[in-house]
């Protein structure tokens, strides 16, 4: 029988294995980018740097019973009766349930805390900008000052105190005793700057979305997650990224970001209205000579038949002015096997566009399709700039 107190400060096993776990989390994230890319927690993160994302691949698989089909024993407060409902099953994706009565086993996947920047780095690893052009904007230089040198003389406001103290101690040490004090002029060190010229690159994303009656919550969400990553990605490549938001049904108008993602409208669809507005905006504000232009359009493809001709014509015009024109056609949730053949804009575009080099059309039926779509838009392809 004894009481002991040992030094445990060298005990690291838990921490070491925690690192192993972290490695597994990273690996799992890499493998699950498809579902993470469109995860609500990230898309709606609203500036937060880290978010929690459920990662299925980290489950410890065992042979176990189907919790939902089993009978369980619980304990009440003395007044329970047959027929009492003690908890409700939480639906997948609708946040946390009431967390009662052993429901936990049903939702026991691992929630990893992830850093959005890290995820972004993983996602962007495979992406690149097609037809990136050195635009004339290069002529516009900006001056930047960089403090990158240390000198013995300078403006007293730029005194580098830390270095000064170090020098002082060093000098005192040379003279016999390392200490701080008795500062002389030779101890002083100053930071000095250099002027650097920088060339800025500019890009504008013209985000267009169909807000006609047929575009539901899910479709908007898909468009939103796509734009989320696209804007983030472009910001890593260009110094300035402007985004113009255009929403349209039968008419198009320029809207704010918030309106763009939340507004619901109704009515029919005239796609050409949006393209016309985009062309107008480009003409007025974003000279193709100066700007890299990326128009993207999301719709369910349900355009008025009579407008298709015009839409194709304007799309061709857009393509001629921009780096890459993207068109995403969003299907009904969960209808991945279902493809509409006629009437849909995607097939019309792929048949009739003159200039298909710079056109990318994708079909998205599922959240998981967002990542492949991103890859398709920004995948590796002809990087050379056609004359």
């Amino acid at each position: 029988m004894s009481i002991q107190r040992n030094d445990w400060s060298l005990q690291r096993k838990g921490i070491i294995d925690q690192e192993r776990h972290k490695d597994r989390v990273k690996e799992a994230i890499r493998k699950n980018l498809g579902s993470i890319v469109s995860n609500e927690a990230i898309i709606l993160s609203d500036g937060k740097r880290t978010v929690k994302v459920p990662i299925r691949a980290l489950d410890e698989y065992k042979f176990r019973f189907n919790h939902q089909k089993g009978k369980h024993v619980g304990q009440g407060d003395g007044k329970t009766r047959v027929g009492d409902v003690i908890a409700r099953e939480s639906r997948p994706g609708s946040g946390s349930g009431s967390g009662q009565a052993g429901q936990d086993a049903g939702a026991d996947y691992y929630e990893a805390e992830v850093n959005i920047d890290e995820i972004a780095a993983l996602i962007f690893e495979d992406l690149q900008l097609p037809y990136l052009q050195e635009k004339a904007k290069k002529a516009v230089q900006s001056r930047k000052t960089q403090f990158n040198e240390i000198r013995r003389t300078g403006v007293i406001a730029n005194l580098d105190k830390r270095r000064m103290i170090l020098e002082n101690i060093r000098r005192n040490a040379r003279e016999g005793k390392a200490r701080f004090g008795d500062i002389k002029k030779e101890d002083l060190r100053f930071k000095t700057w250099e002027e650097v010229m920088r060339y800025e690159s500019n890009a504008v994303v013209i985000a267009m979305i169909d807000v006609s009656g047929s575009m539901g919550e899910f479709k908007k969400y898909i468009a939103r997650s796509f734009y989320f990553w696209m804007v983030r990605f472009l910001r890593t490549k260009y110094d300035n990224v402007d985004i113009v938001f255009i929403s349209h049904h039968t008419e198009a108008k320029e809207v704010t970001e918030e309106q763009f993602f939340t507004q619901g409208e109704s009515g029919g669809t005239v796609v050409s209205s949006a393209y016309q507005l985009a062309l107008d905006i480009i003409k007025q504000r974003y000279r193709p000579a100066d700007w890299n232009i990326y128009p993207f359009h999301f719709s369910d493809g349900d355009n008025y038949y009579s407008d298709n001709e015009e839409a194709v014509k304007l799309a061709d015009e857009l393509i001629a002015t921009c780096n890459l024109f993207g068109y995403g056609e969003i299907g009904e949730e969960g209808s991945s096997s279902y493809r509409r053949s006629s009437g849909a804009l995607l097939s019309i575009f792929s048949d009739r566009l003159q200039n298909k080099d710079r056109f990318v059309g994708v079909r998205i039926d599922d959240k998981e399709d967002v990542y492949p779509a991103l890859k398709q838009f920004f995948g590796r392809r002809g990087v050379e700039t056609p004359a």
Partner: protein
Amino acid sequence: MEDREIKELEKAVEQIWEVALRFGLDPYPTNFEIVPATVMYEVGSYALPGRYSHWTFGKAYHRMKTMYDFGLSKIYEVVINTNPAYGFLLETNSPIQNKMVIAHVLGHVDFFKNNTYFSKTNRRMVESVSTHAQRMMEYEFKHGRKTVERFLDSVLAIEEHIDPYFFIKREISVDEAKRRAELRPRDGRYDDLWHLDKAEREARAAAASPASTEEKERPRERLPEKDLLFYIMKNSPSLAPWQRDAIAMVHEEMEYFVPQMQTKIMNEGWASIWHARIMRELDLSDNEHIEFANLHSGVVSPQKGQLNPYYLGYKIFEDIERRWNEPSQEETEKFGRVGNEGREKMFEVRELENDVSFLRNYLTEELCEELDLFVFELVEEEEWTITEKRWEKVRDQLVSNMTNFGFPYLEVVDGDYNGNRELYLKHRYEGTELDLRYGRKALEHVHMLWGRPVHLETVIDEETTVLHFNGDEHAED
């Protein structure tokens, strides 16, 4: 913690020990360690100090520590079933918390020592797991960390599927006994110096060899085999020696943990009964009494909706004592109980039962009612609803959920299925279906261990179904 406090705690340990013996408890000598939270959570997440490395332990550790850091939950004690036993005390515990923990730990240690399900437990397990860790590390060094880790992922996926009565088999195995007889003279490294008489050894080997050719036929005769881990270790067509060794290590550690899994409710109930009684015997100030009462009620309070094993075990033990102290007229007439045998009966129960038999034999109608136990299930995939309150049904459901420590009962029925060395497992369906998503993934792990196609027979929607996995794709029919 200051030396003064440690001195005080030492005194308390001696006092508690004496009180425990007076009550009739019979624990192993127990050493207590005062540790910081990080160590507490480490021991807690590995269940034994010094085990091999695996990311799942790191995950558990991280979760426990985070819960602690955010003040969501706290472990007060960890106890290790060895001889002498170890109790870990959190350095931030208050003196009264520590006293209660010490008393509680002695209750556990008494249970470990005396409950029959622990009678075959290796009481030097800490040493064993640290040699396992050493070996596992060597394998990581030789074969790569990733390789060993992936392999362990698969082994751990089926670690619960061992035979709790494995030791019986081990004892009756004639071949094994022969093999050991043959090995015995070589127990020590230099033992062979004692009988340099080579001829004698050769003669012995010759005597043993005819049996070993027959041994090859044996696996098929012994089917069905509940111990998947053991069966795969012995018979898998694809494993390297180090992999079989790794399985053996995991198996040995599971053998050690199985009795604890089998007696969770009893063990906690027993420890709670005794910490309460021992504490009442100590000289506590009024303040200490109040603090203790708070702590104690925290441990044994019912949690709404859930079953608290501490509380359930505690109540049943109390009930046993009462019923054998003051038997009803019916009990006296029917069973010839004379009364005042409560204490004796409690000790008998702690010696002979496990959770399943404990509940089946001693959960009474009155207790079910008092505890307000019920059966609940998911109705129309939406609402968890109470569907049964008749006490016998409740009891039977509880017992059935505890069977095989709450895991599906699987058996190997054929190790040469299709005449092609494929592995055929069978789930002994007893009314609850498998989680198929998990089942398929776990089957992939089995395939990884077996190295050839694997099959699992189970029941889905009341129809017998066989899940197949051939290494590339799943199928079922």
